[in-house]
Structures are given as structure tokens and as C-alpha cells.
């Protein structure tokens, strides 16, 4: 009769037992991986960090669960990242290098560690040093074309050409690798 109420009382207690030690263990075991995922999605260190902290904070707020799996943590990170960018306009998405629509992340099954490694490999192994520098200045430091052109003392057209070549090589090589 009242079994369920009673059971939920017991479960409530079990679920609340997640203490600082448990959180610390999960945090230290999975932070790196979770941060990598958030970083791949948001490409911004601070946002990625906040998202991962949010996931752990929610774990405490919700009373925790004795069996939080790595899969669950990763899904939570992904969902929170996608929620964060859900309402961005096309222009904001482009400025941040996010896919144009959230559903593209599912359709492209992105982020995909293997493709990411492949792209890194192509950048390291298939591009000329100057081309690689342009790619890194653009994507890692977020410089504008004009800033890159000033930094490397090359013309604006040359910046375009390097990025053009980089993208077409990456695209071609990825296709070759299937």
C-alpha cells in the first residue's frame, strides 16, 4: 500500500549520500574528457569550463546518484553545450564557428574524436609551414584576416589562399580516408 512512499524515502536517502569525496572522485576521473568534449563543441576555454562545473554542481543539487556513469556525464556536457548555443542567431553561430543549426551536431555525429585526430594529422603533416601558421593564427588565436596579414607580412589575398588550400586539402584527405 504505502510501500512506494516508503521506498522513495529510502531511495531519497541513498541518493543524497553522494558526498564531496564522491564528487571529487568523479571530477578527477572524468574532468579532462568532459572538458575536451565541451571544448570541441564550444571552442572556448571559459565556457567549456563553466559547463563542466555546472554538470558537477547539478549532481550535488539533485542529490546525486550512486551510479553516475561516464556516459551520463558526457551526455550532460553535450546537452548543456547545445542548450547554450540553441538560441544563437546564424550570425552569432558563424562568428563562433558553430554549426548553423543544432540538429547538424547529431546529423554530423560531431564531435567525433577520430575525425578530429585525422584533421590534426593532416594539418601537421600535409600543409606547408606557412599555411599551418595561418590556420593556427586564425583558429587558435582567433586573429582576423587583416591581423594575420600584418603578423606574417603577407597580403590579404595570400591569407585567403592559405586558408583555401588548407580547407581543400583537409576535405580531400578526409574523403580519401573514408
Amino acid at each position: 500500500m504505502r510501500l512506494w512512499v516508503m521506498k522513495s524515502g529510502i531511495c531519497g536517502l541513498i541518493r543524497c549520500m553522494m558526498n564531496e569525496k564522491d564528487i571529487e572522485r568523479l571530477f578527477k576521473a572524468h574532468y579532462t574528457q568532459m572538458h575536451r568534449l565541451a571544448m570541441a563543441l564550444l571552442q572556448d576555454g571559459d565556457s567549456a569550463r563553466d559547463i563542466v562545473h555546472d554538470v558537477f554542481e547539478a549532481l550535488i543539487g539533485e542529490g546525486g546518484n550512486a551510479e553516475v556513469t561516464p556516459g551520463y556525464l558526457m551526455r550532460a556536457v553535450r546537452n548543456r553545450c547545445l542548450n547554450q548555443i540553441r538560441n544563437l542567431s546564424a550570425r552569432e553561430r558563424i562568428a563562433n564557428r558553430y554549426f548553423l543549426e543544432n540538429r547538424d551536431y547529431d546529423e554530423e555525429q560531431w564531435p567525433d574524436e577520430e575525425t578530429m585526430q585525422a584533421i590534426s594529422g593532416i594539418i601537421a603533416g600535409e600543409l606547408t609551414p606557412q599555411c599551418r601558421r595561418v590556420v593556427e593564427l586564425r583558429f587558435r588565436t582567433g586573429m582576423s584576416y587583416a591581423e594575420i596579414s600584418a603578423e606574417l607580412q603577407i597580403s590579404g589575398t595570400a591569407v585567403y589562399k592559405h586558408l583555401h588550400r588548407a580547407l581543400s586539402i583537409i576535405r580531400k584527405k578526409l574523403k580519401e580516408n573514408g
Partner: protein
Amino acid sequence: MDKYDLVLDIIGHPENFSQEQLKELLADKETREIYNLLCKTGSAVNHECDSPDVDAEWEAFKTKRLTGDGGNSAKPARRIKLTSWLSSRAASTAIVVGLSITSIAAIGIGIKMMSDRQQTAAKETVADVKPLAPAAAEGDTIQNAARQKPAPAEPIVFENATLETIMTAIGEYYGVSVRYANNEAKALRLYFRLDASLPLAEVIGQLNTFDRIDITLKDNTLTVN
């Protein structure tokens, strides 16, 4: 214009295009493919950055989010002290137990049952309630929502449970809040089989088939009239 250059133009100066133009240009299959590839390249480049210092991160997290001393003023409501281990939900559950007349007897019986032969039942219970837990995994892209719900293999059966208990469970599982227009409804007792693989609207529809129950869903809030 070459599609690579077009994509480079777009990402270099998105402000030069209207929102409609951007969508239109990127509706082209190849342009979109190149744009997506560019996003991925950005991720890959930033991915190689040094791994974070996990121990330092933990300390920062502890200071900011666990003790509330970290001046995280933007989110004051979210500071939670670990020491208050009795979460509000557990507290409300405790009140339900406390209020029910036979609760003491029930707990007595429960403990006895636990100690004899029903230890497996307790384990099952934990499993039963687990689907309610992952509220941290917010997010509702259709596919993700489907993926995130940890396959509610078996419906949760409420026997002679109060409507309040049932609504709390539904609210938790579907991530919606519950409001009561009056307190009478909370105490209604019923037998209900919650099949959490169904969409929320359908579950509410099932509950509304009871004569005395009228629940409406609006803006992520369930109102019990």
C-alpha cells in the same frame, strides 16, 4: 564565386551579410559542407591545447561552487553546501512519509521486510527510481532527449500513491515543474502506471482520464486544477 572563398568571406565578416543571406548561402549543400568542415577544423586546432590541470580545477570548483565562498555572484541561487546533505527533495519526501498516518508502521514493516527477504526489492527500487535522477542532463534536442532517458525498461507502478507523489516523479523525469491550484488534489490517492517512454502529453492524457483530475501543461509547468 568559389565556394571556399565564399565560406571564408562569411566567417571573416559575418556582419556583412543579413541573417537571411547567411542561411540562404549556407543552404547550398557544398557550401554547407565546407563551412561545417571549417568548424571542425577549428575544433581540431583548439583541441590540441594542453590538458587542463585537473587538481587545480577541482580546487577552483570546490571554492566556487561547493562552499559558496568564491564570489560567484552571478549565480547566488546555485551555491549549495554539501553539508546540507538532505536535499529539498528528500525533505519533501520525508514530509510525505511523516504525514501519512501509517508511515511509522510502514517503515517498521519495511525494515523488517528489508532484513528478511526483500533486500532484492530494495535494489530493484533503486533501479526503478534511477530514470528520475539524470536531471543534470538537461537538454532537449530530440535525439538527445531520446538518448539521455536511460531506457525506462519497466514502467513505474504507483500503488495507492498520492497525486503529489506521482506528479513529483513525473516532474522530475520530464524536467517540468508542478503547481497546484488547490491542496485537495495533492492528497488524491490512485493506482497509476507511469510509462516514462511515452511523451509527457500522453502521460498527462492518461492522468486526465481520471474524473477528478485535470492537469494542464503550459510553459514547462504542469498545473493541477
